[in-house]
């Protein structure tokens, strides 16, 4: 990288705000995915004005510019696929404003998701999107990826909770879109920017809605002797219009691995468990929990346990949210997929996933947001064996294709990033993709900002791009 660019970056953010030695750059070439992309230098701005100057500078030197939060993303969204300047927002981590009466907060992009909830809990509020990485992921990253989480079933994804943004365009212009009000004047630019995976603008300030904490919560663990019974339960809960706040499934293999690690109380001899949560007024929670128990029993649940207190509830959730760490202990590496299907297709799709696993010779673990049909099949493989990795990628491709074939989509919350751009033609026509390309061009001419993401450069080959990787860090979904 041009040393003049590095000197000028240092002039903007100070010497301590720029990293350019190889040993430092290596630390930023991964995120939570199996992808890799090394930046040429890393810069840590403190203010919007600095971000703007950095963007202008990168433009002058004609190098790529990529935003990054905590790097917990699962599709390579925050990786510098074509090198260039990586803008890490970890020093822009202040909560700028809390307006509890109007249920709004204004935050910088580097604020950690859970920190915002901690800051407003005393006022009876929380920030609803709760990705499993919420202890470390940033709200800027949540906005870029339109992150979800177990409770999006009831509360919606990040896009439903963002009303306004401050952004820096690739040419350094600072703009505000949306505002604090829920109403939009003009085109809904905020709605477009949330989930644009850092390809339209760098987000420097975010106005979010805060949700009220529920009066009562009940957490149930339903235990099944067959995977089909669990998936049929989800189908029936959905069809009957029961709306739990969360409905998560773990298959037998996964719950055993988790149990060995977390000791959440998952029965090791079962084939699947559903972790169900209902929230709201205590009267509503009682009615809903009873309805859910009824559906579970009709679908031959072996046992239904209800968490008796906050500690038991937390333990069950620890089992869910800590699952990836647990899997990381027993497999040299894994490939976590993210696909969505209509919930009516859940039983057949899980059977298909297991069949694909058998055919390709992999253990595929399933731990996912069953309530909104958001699958996370996890293919366990040994990355030291390149042949195995190629095979894992092929198996992943088949699973994704199946999701699309039954009317679903390629990603429910992880994003397309650089992982699935080549699969986009499965969902979108060349005309659709061309329109998206031109929309990107309107914000980000020449795609200098986060190049090589979401939209395939050429026609797209319909395959996941396979690349040899070393062991990726344990990630969370």
């Amino acid at each position, binding site marked *: 990288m041009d040393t003049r660019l590095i000197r000028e970056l240092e002039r903007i953010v100070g010497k301590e705000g720029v990293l350019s030695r190889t040993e430092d750059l290596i630390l930023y070439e991964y995120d939570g995915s199996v992808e890799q992309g090394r930046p040429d230098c890393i810069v840590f701005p403190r203010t919007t004005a600095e971000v703007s100057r950095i963007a202008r500078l990168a433009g002058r030197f004609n190098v790529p510019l990529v935003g990054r939060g905590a790097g917990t993303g699962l599709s390579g969204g925050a990786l510098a696929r074509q090198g260039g300047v990586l803008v890490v927002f970890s020093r822009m981590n202040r909560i700028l404003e809390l307006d509890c*009466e109007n249920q*709004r907060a204004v935050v910088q992009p580097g604020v950690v998701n859970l920190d915002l909830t901690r800051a407003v809990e005393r006022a*009876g509020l929380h920030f609803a999107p709760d990705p499993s990485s919420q202890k470390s992921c940033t709200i800027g990253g949540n906005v870029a*990826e*339109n992150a979800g989480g177990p409770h*999006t079933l009831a509360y*919606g994804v990040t*896009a*439903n909770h963002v009303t306004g943004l401050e952004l820096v365009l690739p040419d350094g212009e600072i*703009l505000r*879109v949306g*505002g*604090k*009000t*829920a*109403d*939009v*004047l*003009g*085109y*809904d*630019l905020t*709605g*477009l920017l949330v*989930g*644009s995976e850092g390809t339209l603008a760098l987000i420097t300030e975010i106005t979010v809605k805060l949700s009220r904490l529920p*009066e009562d919560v009940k957490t149930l663990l339903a235990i099944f002797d067959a995977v089909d019974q669990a998936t049929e339960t989800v*189908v029936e809960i*959905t*069809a009957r*219009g029961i709306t739990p706040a969360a409905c998560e499934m773990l298959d037998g293999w996964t719950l055993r691995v988790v149990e060995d690690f977390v000791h959440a109380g998952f029965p090791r001899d079962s084939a699947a468990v559903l972790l169900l949560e209902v929230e709201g*007024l205590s*009267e*509503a929670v009682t*009615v809903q929990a009873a309805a859910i128990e009824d559906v579970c029993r009709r679908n031959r649940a072996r046992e239904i346990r209800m968490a008796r207190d906050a500690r038991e509830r937390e333990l069950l959730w620890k089992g869910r949210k800590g699952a990836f760490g647990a899997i990381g202990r027993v497999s040299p590496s894994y490939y976590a997929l993210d696909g*969505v299907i*209509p*919930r*009516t297709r859940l039983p057949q799709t899980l059977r298909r996933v297991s069949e694909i696993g058998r055919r390709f010779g992999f253990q595929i673990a399933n731990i996912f947001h069953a309530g909104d*049909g958001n699958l996370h099949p996890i293919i366990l493989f040994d990355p030291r064996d390149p042949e195995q990795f190629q095979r894992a990628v092929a198996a992943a491709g088949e699973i994704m294709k199946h999701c699309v074939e039954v*009317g679903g*989509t390629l*990603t*429910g*919350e*992880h*994003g397309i990033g650089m992982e699935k751009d080549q699969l*986009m033609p499965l*969902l*979108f026509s060349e*005309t*659709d993709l061309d*329109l*998206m390309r*031109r*929309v*990107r061009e*309107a914000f980000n001419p020449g795609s200098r900002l986060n190049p090589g993401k*979401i*939209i395939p450069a050429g026609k797209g080959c319909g395959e996941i791009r396979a690349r040899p990787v070393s062991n990726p860090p344990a990630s969370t979904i």
Partner: protein
Amino acid sequence: MTLSAANLSRLEGILGPGQVRSDSATLVSYAVEGAIPSAVAQPANAAAVSETVRFAAAEKLALIPCGGRTKLCMGMPPRRYDLALDLTHLSRIVYYDPGDLTVSAEAGMPLADLDSALAAHGQFLPLGPPFSARATVGGAIASGVDSPLRQFYGTARDFVIGAEFVTGTGAPAKSGGRVVKNVAGYDLHKLLIGSLGTLAVITGVNFKTFPLPPQRRTFVAHFADDQGALVLRRLIGASRLSPSTLEILSPEAARLLASTKDAGAQSDPRAWFHAEDWTLCAGFESSPEVCERYARELGRLAEEAQAAGGHLLQEKDSLALQAAIGRAAPIFLLASPAAVIFKVGLLPGKFSAVFAGLREIADRASLPSALLARGSGTVYFAFLPAGLDGQTVARLSRVAGAVFDLAAAQDGHAMIPWCPLEMKRLVNIWGPARPDFALMRSLKETFDPHVILSPGRFVGGL
């Protein structure tokens, strides 16, 4: 520009006989703010829409997509208008998976038809636009209207999960999908919500549906002034309750709504809408146990807010009341020959200041007014002059500037969804330009490079 005879027959060649009309009675019924098209095209399907738009793009003909034609008066008058693109022949449900709570409907489908199809499976869409008797799916989305149910369910952006549309070059495109959770690609469908047909012609919309609640009730409280109603709103906001609707009406608004009849209602609406009082209506819907809790607690909170009176409406009256509130805009429009309705987007914490400011503006201009506020922060404020003459229009135009300023000063924004055409010659209904306009303009250029889609109706002349 008028369509030449040659062009008319070419268009008929594309769409088939009888699908293009140009008799004057028909054309007049497709007028948009004084502009009358030279032809009406009624394509039979999305492919024919695409063909029509491609033809229009090649011939540089300006077109306006429409459905039930109930909200074509929204927006600024079009700069050009050659062709009305009537989508009412696209009226099918394309896909409905009741078990997944997802549905995909063509743009020209009447919402009432979609509602009955969903109701057959115990489901519904919380869209409820004004003029809903004739409104279509595409029109409800393109006009960006809201309903009282947004208090709980949000607006279209919260439950539209995908769309199919035709851009200004005639290219058929889509975004999103048919599943409830999806982050693949840009959410272009969000841009189409409220875009008044200026970016693309919507041909189909995919929705998340919701189960019909077992019971629907409304608690109505009356107050001598707005402060009491605002106290109750705040108390409800700070409570554990999450009502499905939360509306505040000024006495004038209550009086106008009381005059409407609803066949389904059991009681006279004057029992709920008192012409002398400020009214707060909190709708809630759930199981009987939960509804009981709401009724109890709302009663207690109303007492705490020193309500002059409060009562609980059972299912039928509750639906009638909610329907009346949903029809507020059309009712206000009928109440005055020169009605001007502002939509002010705010944080609810600013209600008190904005209510006072709006009333002061109305008093100073000696204009009768009515106010309806949604608890989530949207205020509809209507000026209702007795007559429509040049002087009144001039007065209304001056008032508009004051409302725009007031909204901006309270960190909100205002626009005018409904007003007399005469006023649009003096006032930009979208209010003053905002800094993000340049981005909107480049999006318009991206979607509609030949500027043929509803030119001039939107923000900043887009």
